[in-house]
C-alpha cells in the first residue's frame, strides 16, 4: 500500500543541509495498522506529510497504492490525497467557520460528488462516530474529543484506502483518547490501512506493527545501540 525505498528529505539553506529523512525504507501492506514512534525531531511527522503527499521528497522512491508519486504534478497529487488518503491530525484541523456538516463535506466537494451522495456519506460517517446530532454545530461548540471524532468522520466520509493519523489522541484526555483509539481499531478491522504517528507507547502497543524512527531512519530497536544503552541503564537501575 505504502512503500518508500531509500527515500530522503533534505532541507537546504545557503550554509547548511539538514536531513529530515535519510535512506528511509518502509513497506506498509494493505490492511495493516502500523504505529510510527520515535523521539521528537526524529522525522516522524515529515514521514507522515510525505506519505500524505503534502510534501515532496529529495530522493528515493515512493509507491502509494502501486503508483510512483515522485513525478506527479500538483493536480495529480491533490487527486490522490482526495481519493485515497484520509488525514487525522493532533490539532483536529477543522475549519472554524464551517459547521460539522460543512467540514466533513469539504473533501467530498473536491471530489465532485453529487449533493445527495455527499449528504448520505456525511450522515453515515457522523452516525459512525456518534455525532449525528451535532451536524449543525460549529467546532468551537464541541469538546476536543468530539472535534477529533468529526475529523475522523471527515476522513472516513471519503472512504480512503489509507488513513494517516498524527498523534490523534495527543490533545485528548485518557477517556477521550481511548474512545478515539477504539474507533480507529474499528476502522482498521473494516479493512483500512492505518499509519499512526505517536509518542504514546500504550497507543503504539495497540497497533499490529511498530516502526521506530531515529534521526530520519527506520531502525530496528533490538539492534540500535542507543536503545541498548538506555535499555541497559534501565535494567541496571532496576537490578
Amino acid at each position, binding site marked *: 500500500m505504502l512503500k518508500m525505498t531509500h527515500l530522503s528529505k533534505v532541507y537546504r539553506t545557503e550554509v547548511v543541509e539538514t536531513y529530515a529523512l535519510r535512506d528511509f525504507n518502509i513497506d506498509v501492506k494493505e490492511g495493516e495498522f502500523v504505529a510510527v514512534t520515535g523521539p521528537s525531531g526524529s522525522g516522524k511527522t515529515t514521514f507522515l506529510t510525505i506519505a500524505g503527499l*503534502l510534501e515532496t521528497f529529495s530522493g528515493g522512491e515512493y509507491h502509494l497504492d502501486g503508483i510512483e508519486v515522485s513525478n506527479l504534478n500538483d493536480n495529480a497529487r491533490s487527486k490522490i*490525497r*482526495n481519493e485515497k488518503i484520509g*488525514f487525522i491530525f493532533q490539532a483536529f*484541523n477543522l475549519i472554524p*467557520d464551517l459547521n460539522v456538516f460543512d467540514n466533513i463535506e*469539504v473533501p467530498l466537494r473536491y471530489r465532485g460528488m453529487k449533493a445527495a451522495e455527499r449528504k448520505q456519506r456525511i450522515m453515515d460517517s457522523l452516525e459512525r462516530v456518534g455525532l449525528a446530532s451535532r451536524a449543525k454545530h460549529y467546532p468551537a461548540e464541541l469538546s476536543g474529543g468530539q472535534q477529533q471524532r468529526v475529523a475522523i468522520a471527515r476522513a472516513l466520509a471519503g472512504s480512503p484506502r489509507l488513513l494517516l493519523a*498524527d498523534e490523534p489522541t495527543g490533545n485528548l484526555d485518557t477517556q477521550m483518547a481511548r474512545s478515539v483509539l477504539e474507533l480507529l481499531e474499528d476502522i482498521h478491522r473494516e479493512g483500512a490501512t492505518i499509519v499512526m504517528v505517536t509518542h504514546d507507547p500504550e497507543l503504539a502497543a495497540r497497533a499490529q506493527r511498530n516502526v521506530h524512527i531515529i534521526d530520519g531512519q527506520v531502525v530496528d530497536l533490538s539492534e540500535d545501540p542507543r536503545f541498548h544503552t538506555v535499555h541497559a541503564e534501565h535494567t541496571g537501575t532496576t537490578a
Partner: protein
Amino acid sequence: MFAYYLQLGLRSLQRNPVLTALMVMAIGFGVAASMTTYSVFLATSSNPIPQKSSQLYAVQVDNWGPEDSDKGEPPDSLNYTDAMALMAAHRAPRQTALYPVGVSVVPDDQSQLPSPESTYATYGDAFAMFDVPFLHGSGWGAAEDDAHAAVAVISRVLNDKLFRGANSVGRQINLDGRNYRITGVMDSWDPQPLFFDAVNTSGFSDPVQIFIPFTRAVELKMATAGNNNCNRDPGLGWDAWLHSECIWIQYWAELPDRAQAVAYRQYLHGYAAEQQRAGRFRWAPNVRLSNVEQWMDHLKVVPPEAKISLLVALGFLLICLVNTVGLLLAKFMRRAPEIGVRRALGASRKTVYAQFLIEAATVGLAGGALGLLLTGVGVLCVGLVFDPQIARLATLDLSLIALTLLVAVLSTVLAAFYPTWRAAQVQPAWQLKSN
C-alpha cells in the same frame, strides 16, 4: 464548484465585516470616480457618426496666408468666395456649405412670442451626407437649392410643439416673418459632438431644430450666428462682406473611398494654385481634408479637463486597488491554516486560485454595487465641473452600469492575483505541523 466558491466567498465577506467594508469602500470609491469621469470622456470623445466618419471630410483652404495663420494651419472655416467656388465645381459625390443662422419661429397665435430655434443654412446634400433620419418627408433637392426656395426641414421636437406631432410636410412654418414650406420632419437626431459645426459650438450644443437652404439664407442676407473672423476690414455692406476674406462657412464633402479623397485633395490643391496664379493668394497652396475623427482631434473637441480628470480618477482607482491588494493579502494569509487543511483534503493549487479569485470577485461585485450608487451621484454632479452642454451628455445608462460592475469585478480580481498566488503557495505540511 462555482456556486460552492461563491457561497464560501459570501461567508468570508460576513466573517470580517470591517475588513470587508474597507475593501468594498476602496473599490467603490475608486470605480465611481473612474466611471463618472469616464462617462464624461466617453460622451465628449465618442464618434458622432461612426458609419460614415471616414467618408465625411471637412475642407480647409488657406485664404489668409502664413502671416495670419496659426502655425501654418489653414483657417478652420471658409469664406464665401471659396465655398461657392467649391460648391460650383461639385467635385465630390455630395457636398455642402453650411453656417448657423439666428432664426425665430413666429407662432400663428399673435399673442405668443417668437421663439428662437437652433437653425442651420445648408445645401440639400447635407441630409444624405449626415444620415439625418426622417419621421415624415425628406430634405430638399438641388432644384430648391438653385431656386433659393423657401423650404425647411424641422425637428421632431419642433413638429410636436407646433403641429402636435401630426405630419406637417407641405405645411408652412413662419421664420422671422417669412413662410417656409416644410419638406421633412427629422426623427430624433442629436449627434454629439456636433461634428459638422464643431468650430462654432466647440462640439456641444442643443439639438438642431431647423434647416433651411443656404442659398435662401444668403439671399435674405442672414448673417452667421456663429464665428465671423476677418483678417482685414471687409468693407461696408452685405455684398462687400460676402466677397471679403472673412471666414464663417463650414464646408463638408462626402468622399466614399480613398481614391476619391486623394482626387479631391488634388483638386483643392489645384484650386488654391489657381488662386495663387490669379494673384489672390500670395502663398503656396495650403489646403487640408480631415475626416470626422481627424477634425474632432484638430479642434480639440474633448475638453482637456475631461482627459485630466479621467487620468486622475484612474490614478485614484490604482491607489484604491493597491490598498485592496494589501487588504486581500491580510485577509487571505490569515486563513493560511484553512488553506493547509483544504490542500490536505484534496484542493489543488488551481482549486485554491479558483476559490480565492471568486471570493475576490464577490468583494469586487459588492464594491461595484457601491460604485454604481456613487457613480449615479457623480453623474448628477458632473454639471458642477463641466459645461451644462457637456454635463447633459453624461448619463448612467445600461452600458455604464454594466461597465461599472465589470470594472469593479475585473479590477478586484486583478488586484487579488498576488494575494491569491501567495495563498496558493501555502505549504500544507507546515501549516498542519504548526497547528
